[in-house]
């Protein structure tokens, strides 16, 4: 496999984490335009862990996930009281606040003769753990997809459990769920914390494969795309967001002949898909149909 293909597949894997993060909140009935902030927090915390504190990547990733979960919980405490567009606007505002805070962080020190660490709008250079430890691009791709497979399998298992049914019920009709004795607020906060941790995991991996991040990497464009991944792919199964990312990055890569106009072409394609299938390609009906066909074929 050539390096370009490895790069594209790594990107699909990395952005799948933020897509899953937006998908989880959509399942719980919340439209978030702010998941890019937790992706960014993950990138910065993970980068500080390995580049400045000398931690191994797994430890830095755990710290980043904890920070992402904590940050999304803090944002969720006041904002999850809001509904629909109000929640969406509040998450966007919170994400912009977090991005501006990242622009204000200056925390550099000399490592191996080079200045390393967050330098405000100039970004965070020197997140070189995978290069310092001789991890080849193919090995990093395998790491990203192994982690993604673990996350997807875990979420698929949860979706088939009682907890998964409860989350979908809260997303569909929170009043009915509350009447049935479900603590809707606490459940949504728990889902938000998991979503924050997942976005942060994607962020820490993104920072390490690029060696450099800056606050502008985590602006509204990434938030819109993360939501689009889940909505294009479909809300019927955890595999939907993965399909969304693959279609998004695949479409972007395959429409290079349109040069700078390809985002416009891509936007049109997304709009058409959402008019045709408002809950995405793999929506609940499609998943049900696929499930029945597969079940019928099983002896």
């Amino acid at each position, binding site marked *: 496999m050539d*390096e370009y293909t490895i*790069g594209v597949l790594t990107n699909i894997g990395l952005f799948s984490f933020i897509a899953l993060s937006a998908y989880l909140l959509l399942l719980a009935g919340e439209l978030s335009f702010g998941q890019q902030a937790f992706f960014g927090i993950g990138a910065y915390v993970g980068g500080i862990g390995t580049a400045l504190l000398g931690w191994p990547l797994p430890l830095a990733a755990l710290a980043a996930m904890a920070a992402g979960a904590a940050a999304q919980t803090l944002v969720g405490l006041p904002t999850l009281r809001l509904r629909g567009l109000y929640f969406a606007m509040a998450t966007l505002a919170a994400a912009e606040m977090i991005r501006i805070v990242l622009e204000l962080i200056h925390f550099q020190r000399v490592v*191996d003769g080079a200045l390393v660490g967050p330098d405000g709008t100039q970004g965070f250079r*020197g997140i070189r753990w995978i*290069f310092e430890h001789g991890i080849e691009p193919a090995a990093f791709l395998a790491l990203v997809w192994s982690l993604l497979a673990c996350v997807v399998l875990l979420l698929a298992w949860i979706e088939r459990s009682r907890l998964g049914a409860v989350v979908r019920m809260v997303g569909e009709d929170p009043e009915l769920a509350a009447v049935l004795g479900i603590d809707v607020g606490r459940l949504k906060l728990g889902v938000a914390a998991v979503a924050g941790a997942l976005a942060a995991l994607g962020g820490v991996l993104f920072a390490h494969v690029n060696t450099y991040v800056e606050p502008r990497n985590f602006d509204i464009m990434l938030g819109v795309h993360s939501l689009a991944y889940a909505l294009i792919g479909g809300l019927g199964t955890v595999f939907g967001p993965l399909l969304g990312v693959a279609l998004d990055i695949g479409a972007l890569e395959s429409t290079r002949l349109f040069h700078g106009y390809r985002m416009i072409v891509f936007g049109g394609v997304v709009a058409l898909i959402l008019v045709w299938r408002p809950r995405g390609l793999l929506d609940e009906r499609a998943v049900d149909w696929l499930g029945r066909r597969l079940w019928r074929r099983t002896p």
Partner: protein
Amino acid sequence: MKRFIAFALFAGLALPAQAAHPEAKVDCKAAGDKYVYDCMIRLSQDGKPLTGVEVTVGADMPTMPMAHSVKPAKAKPGKDPGMYHVRIELEMHGEWALKLQLSGAVRDLIVVKQQFGDEGSGHAGQKMQMK
């Protein structure tokens, strides 16, 4: 299980770290066609020209790292040691983060931010002439 987790957490500590980081200076001139640039890259390590590496150059726009990205192109070694030449085709003017992927004698990734305009490139933040 505990041993596995401990190994996974601290596996990186046992591996050797590289001492010096390669550095790059990039200067791009407009090649004639719109958004096409010829770039000269000067690579160095410990103040000496860095030779014997393969350089692949890609580019991203910082505000959307994957939406506006350029398919990586291989740089050719120039006449002087440590000099490499590459032609890149961007999608628009503005600030781009050039990603220099080094392989061979040294494996690394160097990110250089440049502002691209009609004439060529300058350091990010520097105003370029644009039509």
